[in-house]
């Protein structure tokens, strides 16, 4: 079930660890912003089976909590703040995320495609 992803992930991890932010290709970062308790863009697509990063900027006056059980991430974003989370590798499919403080308004999806 683990599909040998460890062997793929291990060298990748070392690469990221050693090179820091500079080592992460720009294409791997998805940028989202929150305004008026809505995500822009709300629906994004990422390549399946590889790690990626989501960078969330909160333009509202109130704190937000970027949370996704599907992606196993949970992080507070203060007003005007930006956070980055790492997620994946994902199997092809659609994964939901929300601002846990405004779950009815601020929600979106990540779609992983082969």
């Amino acid at each position, binding site marked *: 079930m683990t599909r040998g*992803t460890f062997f793929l992930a291990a060298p990748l991890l070392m690469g990221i660890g050693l090179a820091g932010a500079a080592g992460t290709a720009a294409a791997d970062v998805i940028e989202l912003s929150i305004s008026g308790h809505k995500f822009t863009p709300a629906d994004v697509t990422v390549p399946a089976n590889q790690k990626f990063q989501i960078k969330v900027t909160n333009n509202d*006056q109130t704190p937000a909590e970027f949370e996704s059980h599907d992606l196993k991430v949970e*992080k*507070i974003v203060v007003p005007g703040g930006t956070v980055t989370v790492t997620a994946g590798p994902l199997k092809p499919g659609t994964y939901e995320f929300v601002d846990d403080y405004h779950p009815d308004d601020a929600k979106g999806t990540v779609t992983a495609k082969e």
Partner: protein
Amino acid sequence: MLATLIIVFREVLEAGLIIGIVLAATEGVAHRGRWIAGGILGGVSGAALLAGFAGALANAFSGSGQELFNAAILAVAVLMLGVHITWMASHGRQMAQEMKAMGRAVVQGDRSLTAMALVVTVAVLREGSEVVLFLFGIASSTHEGAAQMLLGGAAGVLAGALVSWLLYRGLVAIPMKHLFKVTNAMIALLAAGMAGQAAAILAGTNMLPTLGDEVWDTSSILRDDSMLGRALHALIGYSDRPPGIQVAAFLVTLAALITLSKMVGQGRRITSSEPRSASPAL
């Protein structure tokens, strides 16, 4: 108001379950009410302080500050639960005897209480800062329903406290002979679950290898964002798609705690056979 109640309740639930177990595990220890109340108070003040520095914390350690902090306080809780388990292994038998002999009389247990108060502080601190930020967001917005929502928040906190109380009352209904066996098992699972969560958090920031991205997928049976899933997540670290490192940390911690408890328990039996022979009932 209902939406706010549910959001706050979900955050408070985890700390509430832990406090319920801690209350049951320290049943009969002198001054435990004071210590645990102190632990809660410490957690709440810490949470308020933490909420104020949330932005700075998020930016610390190249953006991994929140994760590192969460993993660190989980590690502290695991250690303190370990201290309690070892303490119980050497004093639990005697404690149960004394309490049986004198009704629910109190016994001394300062060392264990310090550890358990810290566990409570950590549990409250972890979820509390999220609640504080959430309620602060509501209070500072000019939204006309703000008062209603704050009321919902307060109701959420109360509902969480009620769960704590119910779990505690349920546990202490267990006969004294078995109570500490049950609470010790729950505490060992709690500690192992926390160690697993800490490992998963660190793997999420690439500080630990994942050892396989998902060992199993039970999200079709029990999602970990359902209420039951959340409760099990708090109690034993349940995850519907755990990385290998989370499972490994859970198993290693559980094995270590069981071994430690057995070793201390045996050492105790050899050095003090007298109190045991005094009460054949145990």
